[in-house]
Structures are given as structure tokens and as C-alpha cells.
């Protein structure tokens, strides 16, 4: 593919045009007042965002409240299942910042991966699953922080449907009440990458490694910003406010270079069903439309993203492409893992990079990490567990 002349080469737009955002004149609605109104009418309990919170700008200039702590971590199937360093890094960063959080067992998957893969569910079931989880969060007194991009997008869709469809709302409310639970809608639906954006300066203050020599490309996750599009973080200082600032804002604040590439809007090829049973599509799309383009146009040291499916597709698809001699071979991880590394997290005990497919050694070495030593330390933990000298690795071991 020929390289393209782009109006954006980093994250600063080369244009004199300015776009003023006016929350009063946007084309999509701000649901939050309707949510409070339904609360006043007794349709549901509204769980307010706990203080302290950060006000982040969204696509059309509305400010979104992002809770800093007292968060209820709505975990992700794929992150916990096969990229466990992803969620571990989010928790680790909370602990480094000294923030109070809750990691629940009274949580199910949002089940949206299955819904978008097989449609073996329906509108009411999906909404009931969401509201059961919100109810569980409310009962602990902690506020939901959603780890998965698909959960986040899907829950925004559910919220939209519940606000606009009284019949659906009553049906779902009846189900939740039969479970003996309160019917609760959070004031905001918040993705962990928004929390990362909110705490980016705090993270930068605690940075241990110099990452100024690292070039990253960012893949913005489709379900983060293409579902209910107005409710995603857009910062006028990043891409001129024309693309989401999630991930990029954090990585830049940590001091790394974010390089642009022409297929940034393309999805990763996950496909929900395809990644599990029709991966020829996923492999082709992830490598031909994303990784190879990034390599050719930006030659990054690492690809950073903020969703389960994207890390999976972009990382795992490269092995088969390498066998075909394609121009691939870039490590892929979440920005939470990258930030944790920059703040001195152990690459195997915390970011758990041994679960990733693409070789990450050159990236870690460039960041100044002694990979062999770190692996030996991790192997020592493994041996201790095998020998029964240690039941589990605990937070005390990694902080």
C-alpha cells in the first residue's frame, strides 16, 4: 500500500480551522437530565458519581464526571480470561495512586460479546443483565467502572433504550425486582480508559521509566466511541478534538510519542463471532488493514489500545501473518499495561506479558527493563507456587 499524505502527523492538527463545540446545539441528546428526571419520578434510583471526580470533555463539549475512586470494577471476560495483565494493571494503578476500589464477585459479564457474536439473546435480557450488575454495584456503595469497551458501548445503548422505552423499562424493572434487587441507573457510564485519562497527570508524576524514546500507535476501540458517539472523551488539544483522546492523552502525558497512521478509524477485525470461529477474516483484517499499515507509516515500538477484543485481534493475529512473511511483529497491549510499566510495574508479575503472543522483548529493553532478570524473578514465583511455598502471588509482592 502506498503511504498517504495526512493532515495529521502526530496528534496536532496542521490547520488554522477551529471548531467550537456547543453542548446546547448538538445533534444527539444529553440523557443525563432524563435519567435524573426518571429518578425523581420513582422509575429508578440514580446512583450519583462519587466525589472526588474529574470533569472530562466529550465529543460535543459536554463535561463528563469521571470518578477517581470508590469504583466498582466491572471486569471483562476476555481481559480476565486471556489477557489478565490488562485488568491487573488497572487494579495496580489504583493501588499505586492509593485509591479505594472494589473488585466484585457479584458481577457477570455484560454478555455483549455473545450477543454481538450470536444474537442468542434479546433487548430485555441484555438490559436486565446490565441493570443487575448496576444494582450489585449500588448495593456495595461503589460506582461502576467498566473495563471492557464493548460492555461500555453496550451499556450506553441499553441506557438509551431504557430511557426512551417505558415498556422495556417496566419489563426490566419487574425482572430486577423479582431478583430482590433495587432498580438503579448510574449517573454516568464510565470506561476505565476515561479514568486513565482523568488520572494521567497523577500517573505522570509517578513515572519511573523514561518512555520518550518510545513510539506508539493507538487503535481507538470501535465500541468505545462508535456506539452512542457523543459520550466519549474528545479533547480539543488532541487531534484537534476530531478523534477520541482516550489512550492518546494518557500515552502522551507519560512522555511517549504517539504516531499517526491512515487506517486509524478501521476496526481491529475482532468480529465477535469471527475471532472465535472464523478467524481467517480477523487475521487478514488485523494484519493487512492495521498492523502492516502502522508498520509502514509509523513503524511503532508498540500498539496501544483500550479494549479486550482489540488487544486480542491485533496481538494474536500476527503469528500466522509472520509465517507468510508479512510486515508484522509489533507488541500490542492496553494503555493500562503500558502506563503500569512506565510507573515501574513488573512486566510479568503485574503486566503479565507472557500471556501475549508477539515478542515484547525489544520494547521492554528500549524502556530500560532487564527482561531476563524480570523473567527469572517471575519463574522464581512460579516455582514457589509449584513447591507449595506460596499459595498465590499477592498485592504485597508487587507493590
Amino acid at each position, binding site marked *: 500500500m502506498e503511504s498517504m499524505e495526512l493532515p495529521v502527523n502526530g496528534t496536532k492538527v496542521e490547520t488554522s480551522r477551529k471548531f467550537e463545540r456547543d453542548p446546547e446545539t448538538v445533534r444527539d441528546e444529553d440523557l443525563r437530565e432524563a435519567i435524573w428526571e426518571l429518578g425523581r419520578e420513582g422509575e429508578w434510583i440514580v446512583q450519583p458519581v462519587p466525589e472526588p471526580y474529574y470533569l472530562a470533555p466529550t465529543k460535543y463539549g459536554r463535561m463528563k464526571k469521571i470518578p477517581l475512586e470508590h469504583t466498582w470494577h466491572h471486569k471483562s*471476560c476476555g481481559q480476565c480470561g486471556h489477557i489478565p495483565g490488562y485488568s491487573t494493571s488497572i487494579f495496580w494503578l489504583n493501588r499505586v495512586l492509593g485509591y479505594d476500589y472494589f473488585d466484585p*464477585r457479584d458481577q457477570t459479564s455484560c454478555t455483549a460479546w*455473545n450477543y454481538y457474536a450470536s444474537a442468542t439473546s434479546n433487548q430485555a435480557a441484555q438490559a436486565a443483565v446490565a441493570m443487575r450488575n448496576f444494582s450489585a454495584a449500588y448495593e456495595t456503595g461503589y460506582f461502576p467502572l467498566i473495563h471492557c469497551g464493548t460492555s461500555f458501548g453496550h451499556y450506553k445503548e441499553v441506557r438509551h433504550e431504557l430511557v426512551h422505552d417505558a415498556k422495556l423499562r417496566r419489563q426490566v424493572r419487574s425482572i430486577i425486582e423479582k431478583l430482590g434487587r433495587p432498580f438503579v441507573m448510574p449517573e454516568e457510564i464510565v470506561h476505565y480508559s476515561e479514568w486513565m485519562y482523568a488520572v494521567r497527570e497523577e500517573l505522570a508524576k509517578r513515572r519511573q521509566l523514561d518512555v520518550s524514546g518510545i513510539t506508539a500507535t493507538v487503535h481507538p476501540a*470501535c465500541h468505545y466511541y462508535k456506539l452512542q458517539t457523543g459520550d466519549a472523551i474528545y479533547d480539543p488539544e488532541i487531534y484537534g478534538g476530531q478523534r477520541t483522546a482516550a489512550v492518546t492523552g494518557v500515552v502522551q502525558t507519560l512522555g511517549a510519542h504517539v504516531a499517526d497512521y491512515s487506517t486509524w478509524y478501521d476496526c481491529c477485525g475482532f468480529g465477535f463471532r469471527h475471532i*472465535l470461529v472464523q478467524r481467517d477474516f480477523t487475521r487478514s483484517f488485523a494484519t493487512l488493514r492495521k498492523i502492516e499499515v502502522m508498520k509502514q507509516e509509523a513503524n511503532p515500538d508498540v500498539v496501544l489500545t483500550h479494549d479486550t477484543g482489540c488487544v486480542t485481534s491485533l496481538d494474536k493475529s500476527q503469528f500466522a501473518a509472520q509465517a507468510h512473511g508479512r510486515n508484522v511483529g509489533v507488541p500490542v497491549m492496553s494503555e493500562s499495561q503500558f502506563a503500569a510499566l512506565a510507573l515501574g510495574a513488573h512486566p510479568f508479575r503485574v503486566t503479565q506479558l507472557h500471556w501475549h503472543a508477539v515478542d515484547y522483548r525489544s520494547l521492554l529493553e528500549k524502556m530500560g527493563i532487564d527482561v531476563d532478570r524480570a523473567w527469572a524473578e517471575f519463574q522464581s514465583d512460579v516455582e514457589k*507456587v509449584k513447591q507449595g511455598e506460596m499459595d*498465590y*502471588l499477592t*498485592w504485597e509482592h508487587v507493590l
Partner: protein
Amino acid sequence: MPSDRYGDVALEEKQRLFDEVKADSRYKTYLYGCYECGICVAACPSARFYDFSPRKITQTLAREDVELFYEQLNDDVWNCSQCFSCNRCPRQNSPGGLITIMREVAVKNGLRTTKEALAGYTRIIYKIMTTGTQVSPDMLQEDAFPDWGPQVKQVSENLDVWRRVLPPETLHTTGLSWQVEERTMHELYAIWKMTGTLDMIGELDEGLHDIMEEIMDDALEESGIVSE
């Protein structure tokens, strides 16, 4: 133009399924018309690798072309990636959303082509519906993911101990993505039953349905959760 592939299916049946799609309360917020601009196709990953077009599906529904609708319901909808890149439609359509509804109708009515499309997927349905988490660590097996390279084998060989060297207490699991309380799973079963989701599985795979129903009924009886 529709092919004659489904000529043996009565028009009334095709119309019935179309009406079912159209009756979904989301339909009117996903379809406003079509400028035929093709922006959705340009943004669509599936359109690059399959004979698939979100524009054609949107136009078919807008024109209420029942014959072509039926063909797409059988031959096209499972190619969609459900990424919703097509939501950038200037007419405010959601072709991906329309496809979600079409897929739901296809499952609910047990279409043969749907059963074929989801044939290799049913173990995932079992996992998510019975445990509350979708892709558990023990599903990372070399024979299931040979194209992901030797790292998958390393994970499966070291799975138990690698899960124990994870600092979060909730992640010390192999058959689940995280520890889910029993009561939580049972509440999920009640949701599947109360919303007719379990019945949908019956249309897709009767055997799978029967197994799951037995598990769920026993659990619900034990926990005393109402599911009617």
C-alpha cells in the same frame, strides 16, 4: 435483485419474518432512509473481505424488498463484524443495529443457515449462559487456536500455576474468567428464563437447550429465585 435460491420458501413466510424484524422497537431508530452514499461500506471491515454490503441491507429494508431481505437474512447477516463503524452514516442509520435485529429474528426462528453459521460456536453459548463469563482461561487450547502460535500451548501447559501468580484474588480461576458468586450465576439463569432467551437456544440447538435448562432449573429450585 434476489436470486432464486430461496424460491421454495413462501412469500408469506418471508413477509412474516420481515414483519418480525420491523416490529422490534429499535427498528425505527436504526433506519431513517438511505442516501446511497456508501459511507457505511467504506467504513465496513466485512465489506473488504466478503461479498457483503451494509448499504444493500439498509436499502433492502428501506424498500421493504421482502424477497431480498430473506436472502440477506440467510446469506449475509453473519458476515457483519458488529463493530458499528457504519454508524457514521450521515442519515443516522445504524446498519449494524439492523443486522443485530435480523440476527435475533433468524435465531428465534431457527433458520437452517443460522444453525450452520453458529455450529462451531455453541460451546461459547454454553459457557456464557451457564457461568456468566464468556472466554475462560481453560479455553485457550492449542488445537482450538493453532494460528495464535506456540504461546497458546505455553498458557495451557502452565495454566493452573500462571493463574495463581496473578495478584487479584478474583482471577485465581481456570474455568471462569473471574470468580462469580453462585447466587450471581443463578440470578443470570433467572434472567435468561424470564426474557425467553433460553427458549431461543431451543430453536438453535435442542440438545444444548435441554442441558442448560436442566442445569438452570435445578439451580433455581435450590436457590429459590423466582423465574416466572
